[in-house]
């Protein structure tokens, strides 16, 4: 690099705006050329004199207030129409979008099972599990707490339009601890509550004029559910105890 090429680059060099290759060439020249190095130093001195001595004017407070007032009073007219890619605009509408989505989801949950009924008991299955969870959540396992079937059975009288079979299987490990009335499949049903070790078991019973069926085990959300019909009664067993134990209880009830 010769002096004539180097001279116009001093400012950009000092401002760190030169590309690395040119900058290296220039620095090599400055190392060799006393005249250019001195001129570079003069420009550096000017640059530092400006930044250290000239001073920076700050906006006066009244001006700041005037502008803030103008902003507060503005309606930001002349805003360009939102474009499809205008993410900001979508964001500003997000509560409406979220609400619409939530309503659609709710309607789907409520009505899809009715519009597209799956296997006969699919919706009922969920209802039964929900009833079981509810009963253990809100400390409302039993309306009548008794291990005596002679206390529990009469308690249902007048609360239901049928008389559920009530049996205690304490000997076999399933202790009857009480009963309550629940509402499933659009009707009031009997819920018999058994305890097996730390586990609670809801047995939902209501009459159904259909032939007997043998137990059919399934699981939902970690709960074991057993369903069968016996003596014109519909039985649903819901619990978090093991499938083997459920089968055992079903055998007793189905007996």
């Amino acid at each position, binding site marked *: 690099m010769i002096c004539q090429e180097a001279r116009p680059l001093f*400012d950009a060099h000092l401002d760190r705006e030169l590309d690395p290759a040119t900058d290296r060439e220039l620095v090599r020249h400055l190392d060799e050329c006393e005249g250019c190095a001195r001129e570079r130093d003069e420009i550096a001195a000017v640059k530092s*004199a400006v930044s250290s001595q*000239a001073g*920076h*004017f*700050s*906006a006066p407070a009244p*001006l700041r207030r005037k502008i803030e007032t103008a902003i507060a009073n503005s309606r930001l007219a002349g*805003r360009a129409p939102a474009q499809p890619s205008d993410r*900001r605009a979508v964001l500003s509408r997000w509560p409406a979008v979220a609400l619409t989505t939530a309503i659609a989801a709710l309607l789907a949950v409520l009505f899809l099972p009715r519009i597209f009924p799956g296997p006969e008991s699919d919706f009922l299955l969920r209802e039964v599990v929900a009833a079981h969870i509810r009963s253990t959540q809100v400390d409302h396992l039993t309306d009548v707490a008794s291990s005596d079937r002679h206390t529990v059975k009469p308690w249902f009288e007048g609360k239901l339009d049928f008389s559920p079979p009530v049996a205690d299987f304490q000997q076999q490990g399933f202790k009857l601890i009480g009963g309550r009335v629940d509402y499933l499949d659009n009707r009031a049903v009997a819920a018999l509550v058994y305890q097996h070790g730390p586990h609670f078991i809801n047995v939902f019973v209501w009459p159904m004029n259909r032939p007997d069926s043998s137990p059919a085990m399934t699981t939902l959300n970690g709960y074991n559910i057993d369903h069968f019909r016996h003596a014109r009664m519909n039985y649903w067993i819901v619990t978090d105890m093991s499938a083997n134990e459920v089968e055992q209880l079903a055998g007793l009830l189905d007996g």
Partner: protein
Amino acid sequence: MNRTGNKIARPVVHYPMGTGANRSSQAARMRSARVWSARDNHVAIIGNRVDFERVFMPHLDGAYNLARWLLRNDADAEDVVQEAYLRALRFAGNYRGGDARAWLLAIVRNAAYTWISRNRRDQLAPALDDDRAPEAAHPVDVEVIRRADAAMVRAAIEELPAEFREMVVLRDLEELSYKEIAMVSDLPIGTVMSRLARARARLRAAIQKLSAAGGSR
């Protein structure tokens, strides 16, 4: 609306350009930069006045500093900055994200030049030849420049034509990059570079002259 806004964002140059708009030979050595690349980003981020305040109020001091150095007078600078913010407010919808400070300073600069061309036409430099190399340097004692006091440096800056003065203010006081200065002044980067070099060469001569006058006083 969009058309008007874009005009605001690219300030009208109120002085003869000569051949200055062409990139000078040293410009080829500069890193290539896409001026107003922010323009390609079609995300409008100013949706309301809270956004406007958040994005543009932090640059009020910079805006005032530029206007104050260009107009050399408090009252005029205040008028111009207020006018610039009102314009920015009106055309905020055309701001497409990117360098908010450069966008705002371009409006401030444009408002300042409009004011100067109406009221102080004589202060604008005659035709600038931006292809010219910096004035041949008389050797100056570096110590003379280093000893220059604030009054001397300020006087030297104020003596510069506005087109040179703004380069020094934007680079050494506002610390904008060449690319940002190119956005604000709507000039090619090569022109920014050569104007800045010429501005500093003039400053160097002016400081020497002022300190020589001060020394003989």
